[in-house]
């Protein structure tokens, strides 16, 4: 039981990190980022390739995964996103452009996997890094290190992001630019720098999320494409306009997916596990239909009065 909970915690922390990446990019540039799938998958592959070639614990290579995906984020901004933002394209056009880039990146992941297979004789089309994970022994029971590292990484990221956005000058400029781009531009904040750094931060978060996730689920080239809907669900349930909302949304989605299917399979039998990917989709659809702007759209004050008055007007 404790193993399941630990694993669920690790999984949902990864989802939360990835969801916050989508939200940051969306908040700053109005771009709903489909390249997220490839950024995640590149996180998987960088950690996998480096740890198989050079040996050692996969955790050593998380930094490279994060930086590589961050660079990809900057690449997306410089090549396509900047021009479209200047042209004031609609949200759907921005979304489509990242989708096109995602297909290209996806092809390169496959080419990279082929390259690993032919040159290093590694099984790069299907791999489980879980086996290379450290095991922490507590005497009575032992757990995989990812169960501790992923939640800690998420909490650290939350604190770091909070400090960055609230205390540093650049972070404050970033928030100002997100809230009111015109006014921020007037007092001399360079919006392009803000956009680029949000793409970089988003990429780093996605790469980190992918690198950590590689120790929870099996990796294959299309791993980003299949899990991306879960990340979207986390981000959308969180409301798309709040980083902390997205972290909460990601946690909620991840936990309910992992634990929900565990309890359902106990009640309904093991066959139900095949339907696991439907859970985040259902939660997202239901949340959106009740609160069309996600959980962040709920006004806390109003909620309080409703509870206070016992639901009556």
């Amino acid at each position, binding site marked *: 039981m404790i193993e399941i909970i630990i694993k669920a915690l690790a999984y949902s922390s990864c989802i939360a990190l990835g969801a916050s990446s989508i939200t940051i990019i969306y908040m700053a540039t109005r771009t709903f980022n489909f390249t997220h799938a490839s950024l995640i998958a590149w996180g998987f592959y960088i950690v996998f390739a480096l740890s198989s070639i050079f040996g050692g614990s996969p955790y050593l290579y998380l930094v490279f995964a994060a930086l590589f995906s961050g660079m990809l984020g900057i690449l997306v901004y410089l090549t396509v996103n900047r021009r479209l933002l200047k042209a004031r394209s609609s949200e759907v056009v921005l*979304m*489509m452009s990242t989708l096109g880039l995602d297909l290209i990146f996806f092809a390169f992941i496959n080419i990279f996997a082929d390259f690993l297979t032919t040159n290093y004789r590694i099984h790069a089309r299907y791999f489980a890094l879980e086996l290379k994970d450290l095991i922490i022994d507590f005497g009575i029971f032992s757990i995989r290190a990812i169960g501790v590292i992923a939640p800690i990484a998420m909490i650290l990221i939350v604190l770091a992001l909070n400090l960055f956005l609230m205390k540093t000058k650049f972070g404050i400029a970033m928030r100002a630019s997100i809230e009111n781009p015109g006014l921020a531009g007037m007092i001399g904040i360079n919006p392009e720098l803000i956009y680029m750094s949000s793409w970089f931060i988003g990429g780093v978060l996605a790469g980190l999320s992918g690198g950590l996730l590689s120790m929870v689920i099996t990796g294959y080239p299309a791993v980003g494409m299949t899990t991306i809907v879960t990340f979207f669900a986390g981000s959308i349930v969180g409301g798309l306009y709040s980083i902390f909302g997205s972290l909460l949304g990601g946690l909620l989605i991840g936990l309910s997916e992992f634990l929900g299917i565990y309890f359902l399979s106990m009640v309904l039998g093991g066959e139900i596990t095949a339907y696991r990917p439907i859970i985040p989709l259902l939660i997202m659809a239901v949340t959106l*239909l009740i609160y069309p702007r996600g959980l962040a759209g709920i006004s806390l004050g109003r909620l309080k009065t409703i509870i206070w008055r016992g639901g009556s007007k």
Partner: protein
Amino acid sequence: MIEVPPIILNILINFAIGLIITISLNLEVGYAGIPQFGRVLAVLTGAIVAGAIPGRILALMMNQPSGADYAYHLINYRLVEDINRVLALNPILSAGIFIVTLVFAACLGGIIGYITAYPAIRLKEAYLGITLLAFGDALQIIAWNYQPIVGATQGVLVPDPFRFIGVGELRFLFATIVMLGIAVLIFLYAERISRSPFGRVLKAMRDSEVAAKVYGKDIPKVRAQALIIGSSLAAIGGALWAFYSGSMKAVAYSRLVWTFWPWAYMMLGGTGNNLGVLIGVLIFSIVRTLIYSYKGVLTSIIPIDPNWLEYILVGLTIVVIVMFRPQGIIPEKPALTLSIEKIEKIRKLKTNIKK
């Protein structure tokens, strides 16, 4: 008999199916302005109908298992062979079952469209797109895992309504011609819609919802109608593809192939313009089929697997189009209405009848 090289046949069938799906997508995206990222939902519905309904009807007529057993692959593979033998002797029955299935697919597609109208009326842009995408994924997961309808991972065989022609090349030629004919009909239908008052309302809604409301147009109703028509057309496309390929496996109906690629076709040709869509689909079907057919040759020239070349090409097309020519190859033009002389003539005719 004329010999048609298989590569031409492949281009034509890809063109016909692609045209149907993309036209239906264009109706919702190009005309109504709904970010339809879940096209695969309706397409898969059509394919499920083709996999589940005609075989069961015929099995029932032949006193064979037609319930959940029908989808069990060991029974299904043998049973559909029997059914095909019956169909081969009976052209009228074949045509009948073909048409009944298409009608059924269109109806069920329409229902799916009506259901998706529920979020489509309430949500905006990115939220709506991702919700529709989620619906499509959810149906694919169910079809891939729930055995009694279309056999889950094993899939089912689809009865072949073209069997009376034969089994070889001739059958594929005939099937391709039939499907091209249906695609052309659907294209003409979409053209007619775009020139009708309904088409103009759709465009008005897309360009300015408030203005359309001011003129007394019922926006939720129009949106739902666009979704219903689009989804039923897409379902017909899905059913046709299942009939052509002779089998139905949920894994073949991924969002990549049946949602994102039609988007690329549409954007290349020109969003909101049926003729542009036709040209976009034609270009893509030629290029994709060529890559697919000359894989062996390509592998010896370039160092990468040609599969990935296809992805790069589609992705690059989307990016280049979005950046440098957002209106597509043929930009949208105001739809032509009847000339003033013709309208006068009709008016005179009407007054004459009244007298």
